[in-house]
């Protein structure tokens, strides 16, 4: 009887752990789908007044990014209030891992998100999204230098595929596109650097922090840096304030909702199913972005766009996950 109980207990445990990892994959996919949607909605919102004006070409997209992270942080705070975790913000900020989350926010927000928003604004969502999807590959390269991680040939192959995909996506802008198209592609690459660094820092200190709180702090810290440092420098504050009372504010708020949901799902997936797998499902947003842009803004899906997005997706899967492990979850 005792032996049977032991065997059954082990089976139940295995089933529970498997379901935990599978839920993690679900969160990873949700993070990809909502991030793609976020990019398309943010693109619509920041194509309207007051985001169409501004003292410089940077001012409006940065004001949009600031509002986006501000709203994402606000929605996440409401969520944490609802789940009874709001006291954890201050407690977490009093610990070193909490401060590492803030540092990761600097790279992920003002560098990653600013590059991403400027990229969408100048090069269009369907180009910026697949390029920024290279960030896990960039993260892997940085991990070699910073975390002294070893990188296999499979990973390098994945990195090469990603970069090839990005070149295919970036090649030959469609007619009538923004005059800053190439700058937009460059800024999308900068976003990759910021997010890659964010990933490295996260790996370094974030295992100990509740993912729901980590992401709440990350969005709030990012908003604060935009508001006190970036926007005043880029002359973005007038646009920030002008947005209040316009329809575009609500569209950015909606994008912030999906952005917050996406990040929440992403941080949870990291914890539940492992970094490699979570990153792989997260970057499915390159494909989701093409899908949502086609569905909502009727952006045509060109063969080059689809081919490049698929290459980036395959490359990142190669770079961040052992495909055999991905198919066989039981042998983790």
């Amino acid at each position, binding site marked *: 009887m005792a032996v049977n*109980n*032991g065997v*059954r*207990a*082990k089976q*139940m*445990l295995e089933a*529970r*752990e498997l379901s*935990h*990892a599978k839920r*993690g994959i679900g969160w990873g996919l949700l993070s990809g789908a909502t991030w793609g949607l976020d990019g398309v909605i943010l693109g619509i919102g920041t194509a309207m007044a007051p985001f169409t004006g501004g003292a410089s070409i940077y001012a409006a997209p940065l004001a949009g990014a600031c509002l986006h992270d501000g709203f994402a942080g606000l929605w996440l705070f409401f969520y944490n209030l*609802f*789940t*009874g*975790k709001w*006291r*954890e913000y*201050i*407690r*977490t900020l*009093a*610990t*070193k*891992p*909490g401060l590492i989350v803030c540092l990761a926010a600097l790279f992920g927000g003002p560098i990653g998100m600013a590059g991403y928003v400027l990229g969408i604004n100048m090069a269009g969502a369907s180009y910026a999204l697949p390029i920024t999807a290279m960030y896990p590959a960039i993260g892997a390269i940085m991990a070699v230098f910073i975390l002294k991680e070893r990188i296999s040939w499979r990973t390098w192959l994945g990195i090469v595929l990603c970069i090839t995909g990005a070149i295919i996506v970036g090649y030959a802008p469609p007619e009538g596109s923004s005059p800053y198209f190439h700058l937009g592609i460059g800024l999308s690459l900068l976003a990759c650097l910021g997010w890659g660094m964010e990933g490295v820092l996260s790996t370094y*200190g974030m*295992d*100990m*922090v*509740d*993912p729901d*709180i980590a992401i709440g702090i990350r969005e709030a810290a990012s908003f604060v840096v935009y508001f006190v440092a970036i926007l005043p420098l880029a002359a973005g504050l007038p646009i920030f304030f002008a947005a209040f009372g316009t329809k575009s504010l609500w569209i950015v708020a909606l994008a912030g909702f999906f952005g917050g949901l996406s990040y929440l799902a992403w941080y949870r997936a990291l*914890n*539940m*199913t*492992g970094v490699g797998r979570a990153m792989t499902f997260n970057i499915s947003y390159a494909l989701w972005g093409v899908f949502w842009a086609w569905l909502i803004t009727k952006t045509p899906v060109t063969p080059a766009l689809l081919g490049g997005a698929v290459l980036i997706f395959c490359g990142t899967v190669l770079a961040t996950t052992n495909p055999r492990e991905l198919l066989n979850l039981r042998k983790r």
Partner: protein
Amino acid sequence: MKLPMRFRIIHLVSQRDNISDREVMEALQDEYGDEGQYKMSIIETHLMSLRAVGIIENTGVSLDENDNLVQQFSITDYGRDLLDKYLPSQWK
């Protein structure tokens, strides 16, 4: 100041080898019992995630008299390293 609950769970596991999920729940009652996050489902999720990232490890599993799964956990070397680095000094 109180530790964040997840951080406190790591600390608890580091102090008691083979602590069960229920003992963790009971031990947290005085500190976090009046908060909305004090729920078995949330504490279970923390424990499973901490195990998945290698901070704690599963050291035993059994069934109680009502056929519910009871898990036991201990800290890993990686978890102890993290605590050495990041546990605030007043908790050491």
